[in-house]
């Protein structure tokens, strides 16, 4: 009797559990994206993280110019066209007509998008006296780190549909900067209303954009709900609802995807990739990342002042072993300081061959027949361009030991590491870079320009020939001419070897089979306009 009761109870429990298994993944035309974290806020001008951009600029807002989805190509956005003055210091944007702002609980727009919105969006960041400048803490880190503050001389509304940016100096990458997330356009009318109501910070909490999706609800660390904006200027999105189910653990994201609780997930755990590949429900997409992982030499410190030493060390590194051991195959060997997905990538560059014997000889020529002692700094954190710096440092250490160079591995806490390498305390060091705007200048000038020594140029490398090439390219609007200059700069870089370019990592994005037309964004974003779900 007792046994029967237990059996019955278990049976009932199972039945109940099965019956209760609620429909997962939601109904048609709702796309669920298992995002990795909560956004810092809802105004992309104020923040720098990709998580925030996914939740805001990439789906809710537009910019004057934009990147064509899945590429680094710049196409018209809220501006239909633009002209650059002959001296390269004036950019005149012709604005798109008939663009609507989203209607929310807090705001109903009475007019279309126009020049006032552009002027507001940039003046807020640029003009310290602007009434909105200090709202929500007022740190415009990305705007400032791209030197926009000092670059812009004035922002002028020519008429309702024309805006002119006057620059202090010609700067060809300016147009690429205008496609970046911080350049998103907010509604000036909404801002005015909120200022009048005494709640200006609402502009940054409850966003109103011109983009394909509008925010409906946000619960911190749990969910962000969006609906398609029906009056979007490029046409309503194919999906009706977009949900970000915030799921910080990568293994759990994968389990959710397997259970049909989400359609797209970012940053898979490398250990799960093999299983994803063989999973019939999942399409594992991949693409080379817009990044480079490198080992830099402090070129102002002996013996790295000698180009022969740098070349010899480069030739001693077995990159194939690093890609296998550190990137677990999810990387390609780098020969240039910019990734192959960026225009002007120099295909003709010949990489330093892996040749320990030749390296030894070169080292002897440089005056170090018995090698020397140095250090390798390894970052304490995992980055997209280098999944395991410590392991990489160990492999390089062993490679260098084979040519008589004894290197000690050094590591500091991340903030400390960045600060000390900036000051040049290191011998050699690991670091990398992920592109901001797809412009070669964003790698070559930021990381290797003479101006950047003591800041992001941690190799402390200032080469006149290289610097003159990238400075010329900065002031030339002609893309063909710029391409030529950057290609030449890459040749100089390779000859002088301030870094050992290690690898460009490969980005993986698992999406469920029913998702149509999803594209990997080279900038690491997750963009859902243009994506559909098969019934």
């Amino acid at each position, binding site marked *: 009797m007792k046994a029967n009761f237990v059996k019955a109870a278990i049976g009932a429990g199972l039945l109940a*559990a*099965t019956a*209760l*298994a*609620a*429909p*997962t993944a*939601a*109904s048609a035309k*709702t796309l*669920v994206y298992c995002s990795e*974290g*909560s956004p*810092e*806020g809802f105004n992309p001008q*104020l923040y*720098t993280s990709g998580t925030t951009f996914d939740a805001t600029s990439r789906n809710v807002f537009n910019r004057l110019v934009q990147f064509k989805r899945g590429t680094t190509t710049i196409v018209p956005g809220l501006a239909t066209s633009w002209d650059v003055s002959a001296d390269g210091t004036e950019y005149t944007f012709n604005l798109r007509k008939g663009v609507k702002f989203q209607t929310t609980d807090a705001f109903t727009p009475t007019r279309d998008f126009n020049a006032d919105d552009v002027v507001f969006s940039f003046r807020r960041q640029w003009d310290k006296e602007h009434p909105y400048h200090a709202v*929500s*803490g007022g*740190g415009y*880190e990305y705007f*400032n*780190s791209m030197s926009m503050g000092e670059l812009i001389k004035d922002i002028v509304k020519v008429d309702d549909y024309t805006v002119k940016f006057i620059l202090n100096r010609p700067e060809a990458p300016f147009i690429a900067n205008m496609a970046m997330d911080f350049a998103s356009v907010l509604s000036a009318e909404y801002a005015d209303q909120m200022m009048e109501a005494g709640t200006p910070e609402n502009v940054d909490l409850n966003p109103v954009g011109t983009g394909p999706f509008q925010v409906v*609800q946000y*619960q*911190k*660390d*749990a*969910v962000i*709900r969006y609906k398609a904006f029906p009056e979007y200027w490029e046409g309503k999105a194919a999906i009706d609802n977009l*949900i970000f*189910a*915030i*799921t*910080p*653990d990568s*293994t*759990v994201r994968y*389990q*959710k995807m*397997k*259970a049909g*609780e989400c359609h797209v997930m970012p940053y898979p755990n490398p250990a799960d990739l093999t299983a994803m590949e063989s999973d019939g429900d999942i399409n594992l997409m991949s693409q080379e990342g817009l990044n480079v992982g490198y080992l830099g030499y402090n070129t102002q410190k002996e013996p790295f002042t000698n180009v022969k030493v740098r070349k010899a060390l480069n030739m001693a590194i077995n990159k194939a072993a690093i890609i296998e051991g550190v990137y677990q195959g999810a990387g390609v060997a780098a020969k240039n300081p910019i990734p192959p997905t960026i225009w002007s990538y120099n295909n003709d560059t010949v990489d330093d061959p892996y040749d320990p014997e030749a390296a030894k000889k070169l080292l002897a020529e440089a005056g170090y027949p018995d090698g020397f002692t140095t250090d390798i700094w390894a970052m304490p954190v995992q980055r997209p361009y280098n999944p395991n710096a410590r392991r990489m440092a160990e492999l390089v250490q062993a490679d260098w030991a084979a040519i008589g160079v004894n290197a000690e591995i050094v590591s*500091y*806490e*991340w*903030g*400390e590491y*960045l*600060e000390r390498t*900036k000051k040049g305390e290191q011998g050699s060091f690991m*670091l*990398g*870079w992920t592109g901001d705007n797809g412009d070669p200048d964003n790698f070559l000038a*930021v990381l290797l320009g003479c101006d950047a020594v003591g*800041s*992001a140029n941690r190799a402390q490398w200032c080469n006149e020939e290289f610097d003159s090439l990238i400075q010329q390219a900065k002031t030339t609007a002609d893309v063909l001419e710029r391409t030529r200059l950057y290609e030449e700069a890459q040749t100089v870089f390779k000859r002088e070897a301030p870094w050992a370019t290690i690898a460009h990592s490969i980005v993986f994005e698992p999406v469920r089979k029913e998702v149509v037309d999803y594209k990997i964004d080279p900038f690491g974003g997750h963009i859902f306009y243009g994506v559909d779900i098969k019934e």
Partner: protein
Amino acid sequence: MLGFLLRRLGDVIPTFFGVTILVFLMIHLIPSDPIQMRAGERSIDPERYAELQKEYGFDRPLVVQYFDYLGGVLQGDLGESFVTKRPVIEEFATLFPATIELSIAGILFAVIIGLPLGVIAAINRGKWLDHLTMSLSLTGYSMPIFWWALLLIMFFSTTLGWTPVSGRLSIMYYIEPTTGFMLIDTLISDEKGAFISALRHLILPTIALGTIPMAVIARMTRSSMLEVLGEEYIRVARAKGLAPMRVIMVHALRNALIPVITVIGLQVGVLFAGAILTETIFSWPGIGKWIVEALNRRDYPTIQGGILMIAFVVMGVNLLVDLMYGVINPRIRHKR
């Protein structure tokens, strides 16, 4: 009883100051600069750096910063998050109900399963049932939460499909938080099925979080029961011919409960520590996950505020436990 309460409250004040000093100093001992860290590879220009230092108050001596912070805390102001620029107390209030809900479920699970297990083991001392329950509890105690949680998800959610993988509520339900407690909010909402969904979402996190406290409670109950069962008054009760169940439940268990309640009180701290892992794995929007994220971003005000509030809660619960002793055992109540 009032004197007892006042004495206990008096103990809380120095503990509070101790915690503020500890939290404040510990954070500043981490060799890290939040401004540099946030700037990352791109680095930051010295002028902007100085501006931010001023904004965050880092340009003043540590002692001044501490008293400034303490002044704020005493007025209920925990500062603003460096990252979201929102008041820390506001973020805490939004997220705390989720942690409370999970913790209550966890402790209920631990007590409801752990207490009977301990009693069963004690009255079957040395028999196979004793060995079985104790090995089970040892296994539960030794299992790292993240591993146990993933096993539960893989088995019950992915393979069997009985429970949802993570979150607090199925995304098909749209509920505006009223109390912040999902079980209550779904119950008072008009959405049919939402309450069941919330309940189902609670199952696995509760087991993952409650397993270690459950094991501790089971072991403590067993040893405490064994001690009491050997007492003379139990022999007297049995000799008087009382029903065995009555002897165990009324005479033995009630007296064995004092150390068990102490352990339950102490488990609240363990629960909060466990919540950090459990919340991260189950995407549970509570304060555990919030504090970890703040630590990674060196968001000082959030870390300080969060830990301080947790310390408060743990102190409060322990005060409550002390008062419970008084309720259960009159001798403690009357002791001076």
